[in-house]
């Protein structure tokens, strides 16, 4: 048996750690992440508060732990929504071509041309300001990029010999699509989905930064980071730790995504 690739190892460790932290936070955090402490506002990291406290005297470590679960959950659901929606649209559009494709792409481009911010604000206002609003808004905002990439892959694959071969062999269009084209979309999609996971984490904090996010008192890394800005001079730890948490999570998820792609790529099967 071979050792796993280094990227899988590092990525797996980071994400594993994240999952453990998220799980632990649902049972235990050092302090209540919502508990205010008026005496310990903006306290620097110390033995009592390892990562310091925020402007309301809430324990940063506890909030970071609780935020792990929320942030990861929001990002995962959003990516899942965007990828499944986009893949279906892209596959269909790229394969049928003709006027159907053109119509779908017109809608797709229209959606794509919406800055996510406006779409998010609009949908949030209609759905209500909660995390499902964010998921829906960002999911819909990112689906068109997926559709475009999938369609692009389908378009370039159509002309390849093995697709024609499949057709010549009498396989149905649907079978060809699922058996030969979909697997070939996985590699670019994995890359896209992993970056998208990052985009969502970032989009959430950017929205909070612009004042459009969902900033419940319950912590997400995004709103912790956005909330830290006014205190950057007095309390660097407020921004550094959520920033670090986001960066490390992204690093982990990207490394894991790369490793996953190596495994999933059909042409790599059995190659090594």
């Amino acid at each position: 048996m071979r050792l796993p690739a280094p990227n899988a190892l590092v990525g797996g460790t980071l994400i594993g750690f994240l999952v453990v932290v998220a799980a632990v936070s649902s049972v235990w955090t050092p302090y209540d992440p919502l508990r205010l402490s008026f005496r310990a506002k903006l306290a620097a990291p110390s033995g009592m508060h390892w990562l310091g406290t925020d402007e309301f005297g809430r324990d940063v470590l506890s909030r970071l732990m609780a935020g792990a679960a929320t942030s990861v959950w929001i990002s995962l659901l959003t990516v899942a929504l965007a990828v499944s929606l986009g893949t279906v649209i892209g596959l269909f559009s790229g394969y049928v071509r003709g006027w159907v494709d053109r119509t779908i792409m017109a809608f797709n481009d229209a959606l794509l041309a919406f800055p996510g911010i406006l779409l998010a604000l609009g949908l949030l206002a209609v759905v209500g300001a909660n995390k499902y609003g964010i998921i829906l808004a960002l999911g819909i905002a990112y689906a068109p990029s997926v559709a475009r990439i999938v369609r692009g892959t389908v378009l370039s694959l159509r002309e390849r010999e093995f697709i024609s071969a499949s057709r010549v062999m009498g396989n149905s269009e649907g079978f060809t699509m699922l058996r030969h084209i979909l697997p070939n979309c996985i590699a670019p999609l994995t890359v896209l989905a992993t970056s998208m996971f990052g985009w969502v984490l970032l989009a959430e904090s950017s929205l909070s930064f612009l004042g459009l996010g969902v900033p419940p008192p319950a912590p997400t890394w995004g709103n912790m980071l956005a909330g830290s800005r006014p205190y950057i001079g007095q309390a660097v730890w407020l921004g550094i730790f959520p920033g670090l948490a986001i960066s490390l999570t992204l690093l982990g998820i990207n490394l894991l995504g790369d490793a996953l792609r190596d495994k999933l790529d059909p042409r790599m099967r059995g190659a090594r």
Partner: protein
Amino acid sequence: MNRLLASAFTLLVLASPAAAQSITVAVAADIRSNNPGVNRDDNTDDFALQLVEGLVGYNEGGVATPLLAEKVDLSADGKTYTFTLRQGVKFHNGAELSSADVLWSWNRYMDPKTDWRCTSEFDGRSGLKVEAVTAPDARTVVMQIDKPNALFLDTLARTDCAMTAILHKDSVKADGSWDKPIGTGPYKFGEWKRGEYFTMTAFEGYKSPSGGQRDGYVGSKRPLLKEVKFLVVKDPATVKAGLISGALDMAEILPSDAAELKKSPKLSVAAEPNAVRHVFLIQTKDAVMGNQKLRQAIAASLDMDEIVASFYNDLGKPNTSPIYSGSSYFGEVEKKGHVYDPDRAKKLLQEAGYKGEKIVILANKRPTVPSFPAAVVAQQMLQAVGVNAEIEVLDWATQLDRFNKGNYQMQSFSFSARFDPAIAFEQFSGPKDKQPRKTWDNPDAQKQIDKLYVTSDRAERQKIVDELHKRVIDEVPMIFAFNGLDIIAHAKRVQGFKPWQSKLRMWEVTLAN
């Protein structure tokens, strides 16, 4: 070297002309127009009122006092006001002020095509009607109103009406469209680059009212700075950086930055309370919130000191009265308000029969208002006595929409500044079925407020105010928490500046070199 390079460019770019006598002030938003009282917001009013003046203006204590007028005489029947203009007052174009200019300005304001914000305040639609304005001679203007009104001068002086400023007729073009303000104020309109900056320059021919001292919008108003450039900087962190680096000479800062900026050797920080009232609105028509005992319980559960501190740290003080703390009507009675008593709150909750129904507090995250931090701290205190409180964060326009429709249980909200008690009460009192935005719907109280509008006697008015204050505290149609605070940081070389009612008055301010 680097430092030199940077400051050279900074000077070159930010304070181009007459750098030595000019200062750069950061403002959070661009002005909406340079047309006083027409297309406006508070920020626009602030700029306009450096350029133009009205017959009367507020003094430091919020009382309308002669400004372009030398004196104002009221007839015995309370319906005829005679304004005598000060002599030698000049417009920015050199023309001398006369009663004809007052007439011209007034007619322009009352023309619906002008879109003056306050037309409806004087044409009878809001209860006050100016029936005639005449100019018997060049220095006298007579205004006739339909019935006695204790607030006529006050309304003329209102900042959102741009003080009913007297303008020279060359302020509009030949075709009647707006050009630029030619007023009598201490500063002249400079240039305006939309979205970036606007400037004003000293009016050399300014004739200051007598009084020797600065006093609100009246008193001594000499323009001692050559040029003031207002730079639009939205982001508070950038403002802070600009102040520290010296690129900005003055700016309103976030309360959370006050302590840090105070430590800077180059900067001073000035803080003064204003008439803005931060408040927890309660929808008394709501099934849960309709219960007065529950509302009293909520009021008793709030430790106001901590709520103030959540935004203003150690700079602010609680004030649970609808009357702002700087008002001359703020007396011993108004000082007695809600008392923090969690045990009493728990008892009241029981008496109210509260069974853990969810109560949602609406808030917004604009960095300049305490809406969100106050809500977070209040939520914690409510939960501590057993109230199931939640926060819903909205953008400001959405929250305002919910306010106007009366669609909420609680809101962490701010009432804009109103000086006179009558207007301060009118702001939130009235029938909800006609005006859903009203928070206090009590016909008895409304009668008393109406009385405030026509009563001129000071002692009588104080009695009514005291009465109304006690009612608000007892009925808890909303919970007043604390007054706003203007916190301005400025370079130490800028001297003689004092914040007042959120206005950055640039007269009598000097620059030490």
